[in-house]
């Protein structure tokens, strides 16, 4: 492959790094705000390990609010997040109670969805860019879990051969390996998780 191809891989790497930084920053943002919610909710909400568990917990917490219970009792069960914010605001004003914890919970929920979307975009971009080198990389989208290992080694062998035959320089090869790992990690483990140090553990 030509030099400008290696250059393109470098450009792609910079782009992916920027996306990664953005995702990491959003996750930290989530952790900081989630900790705040732990306090505000007086422990009714706790930070969970995975994003999906956090979403379930946040949604459940919000739907347990008096406002949502009342909506349900009145058979109002079709509303978007935007509409729910308006309902909560009205409820807050009418009863003169502080609903900031629920607003925070909603914003955390939205933040998780944003993180998931960013990760999806990043993975799609990685697959799209890596397909210039490994044309069949998108096979991972239709493969089953037990096929991942075979698929990974197939792609890695391809990359090793490109390096051997000087079709990829060292830097480009490393970037491709990193990208390949990132893609497979996503398909095997899912969205990024929250580090253990931010999750409550019972002190021994």
């Amino acid at each position, binding site marked *: 492959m030509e030099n400008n191809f290696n250059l393109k891989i470098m450009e792609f790497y910079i782009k992916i790094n920027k996306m990664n930084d953005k995702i990491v920053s959003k996750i930290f943002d989530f952790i900081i705000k989630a900790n705040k919610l732990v306090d505000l909710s*007086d*422990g*009714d*909400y*706790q930070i*969970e390990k995975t994003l999906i*568990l956090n979403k*379930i*917990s946040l*949604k*459940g917490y*919000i*739907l*347990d609010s008096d406002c*949502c219970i*009342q*909506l*349900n*009792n*009145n*058979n*109002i*069960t*079709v*509303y*978007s*997040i935007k*509409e*729910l914010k*308006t*309902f909560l605001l*009205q*409820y807050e004003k*009418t*009863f003169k109670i502080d609903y900031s914890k629920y607003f925070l919970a909603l914003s955390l929920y939205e933040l998780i969805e944003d993180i998931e979307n960013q990760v999806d975009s990043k993975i799609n971009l990685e697959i799209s860019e890596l397909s210039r080198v490994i044309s069949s990389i998108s096979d991972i989208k239709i493969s089953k879990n037990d096929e991942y290992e075979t698929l990974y080694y197939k792609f890695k062998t391809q990359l090793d051969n490109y390096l051997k035959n000087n079709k990829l320089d060292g830097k480009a090869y490393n970037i491709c390996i990193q990208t390949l790992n990132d893609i497979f990690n996503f398909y095997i483990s899912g969205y990024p998780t929250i580090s253990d140090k931010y999750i*409550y553990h*019972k*002190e021994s």
Partner: protein
Amino acid sequence: MSAEELSKYINKKIDDINLKYPNFITNEQRNNYINKNVNIEMTPEQIDKKISEIDNMYNKIVSQINISNQLTQDLDIKFQNKKIKNVDKTFGEVYKSYVIHALKLYEEIVNDKTISNNSKKQIFELRLNKYISNKKIDTNEYLLQQIKDPIKVEYAKTELFMGSESLNFESVSNLYKTFTEDLNQIVNDFEGKMNFTVMNNRPLEFDNKGKLISKIDYNFNGIKEIYDFAKEHGKKIKFHTFLWHNAIPENLKQSINKVYDPQLKREMALSFLKDYAINLSNFINQNGYDLNQIDVLNEIASDEINMGILRDSWWKDVIGKNPTNGDEYFIDVLKIVREQFPNVNLIYNDYNEYLPYKCENICKIINYIKKIETRDGIKLLDGLGLQAHYFDYIKKLDMPLSVNMIKETSIKYAQLDMPLYITEFDFNIIANQNANQLKQAFINNYVNIVDGFNMWGNSDNLTWGHTMLNGQFLNSHAIDANGKPKEIYYHIMEQMGIMNKNNQLIYMYDNDGNKPKFKSDKKIINNISFFQRSQNEIQIYQQIKNKNQIIKQQKNHQKLMNTPKAKKLKYDNSTHNNGFISTIILSLIISFICGAIFIVCYIAVGG
């Protein structure tokens, strides 16, 4: 022009288009077009040709945008005038003619520039009271002619003018607002019933085959006043009601009851009904009214449990089944009306529709009519009218009305696959916890499935529901005694998607009637509701919740365990007492020693 200038020209045209219709051409489309159509090697002739092509495209696009904008404006104006977004659904009220007269009078006085604003109220109320007094006298004379029974005359007078004393400038101004801004269909009250429209001034004569030979004097003046006002304001009209067991002209009854031959009776009744339908049709056409619906059959289902499908009535006895094909009596009635009103929606209207046994009867009638329609290839019925007079206690079943009854019957009607209409809504239930649940069930289950909604009467005072029950007014209407719509009014309209007055959240009732009430904006098209969760999610959340509660307890426990033990100063009684005694003893000893020293010194000095 150079290629670069051509690019600029294209950009300018696109900017113009996007100004008229934002984002009509996206940046991507813009760039693609330029990349495709402009290149540095173009000859002047090619550039000229391209410019001409671009100008043609531009003109076409702009003219299409203009047409589209104009259509949108026209539609907006149309909706603005009617104040109703969904012009296909009807939303109306049933009016007595004196109420319409009050609205008409109000309009006249308010628009009369010769009357000062300060005097309008006084003049209106004077003129209205005079009108109602005169109308009562005229009506009394009319009633005496129509009805022989003096008790019935008294009852009719009370019913005819019920609530009239409540009409004042303020309440009428509010009612006028409802009439002009919200309603798109007006229905007449008693003045359209046969015992008022057919004058009882002479006997009816029929030939020996049952054909009507005498002329009938019809009195459509009562409904004329209502329909004229409706027409002036561009409202659709519904005629109530063609056939009703409680509205049989006396002279018709007398003529037919004298006859013994059932076939002759049948012919006489049908002949009369044809004459009635023709005259009603002539009245409608001559006055150019926009007649949308007719309640052709009113309350024909049996109201008794296990006593057959059809109500026993004079009409049923007299018309009877068709001797040729065995069709029920009401099929002939529908055919008569259909012939005179081919383009009007014919309705079958009934009450207690939320009771299971009544629902069954009504559905059977509808299915029967549909079978006849298929057999004869003729559309006889265009809709089912559900009166929606709600009462909380069902005497016949000796049980209260339940939410389940409302839900289940609404499902049965929805399955009929026929346009449904709420025709005479009022809510005659004393406000209590149950009332709100029943109201909500009605709105969620019935209002959700109907194509039209009419209220019986015009306010809490201007309706038959204005009665005392156990010392409480029923306040059964959706509009209060001052003519102001209640929240249920707006809720109904929004549930039907008819109107959204001010785009703000409005309230609806909850179980105890005290807490705030919310409305949902039902504009969710592509988004899944936030409320939606799978069973799995709910179970997982429950586990998380339990886990968090345990964590909370653990934290509280830890907090207690980690609280440092504070040093306390103890109050010791014995030590305190011992200290005090020691002080006294010491004082005594010191005093003794001082005393002894003094004596020794005194002796030594030679005292």
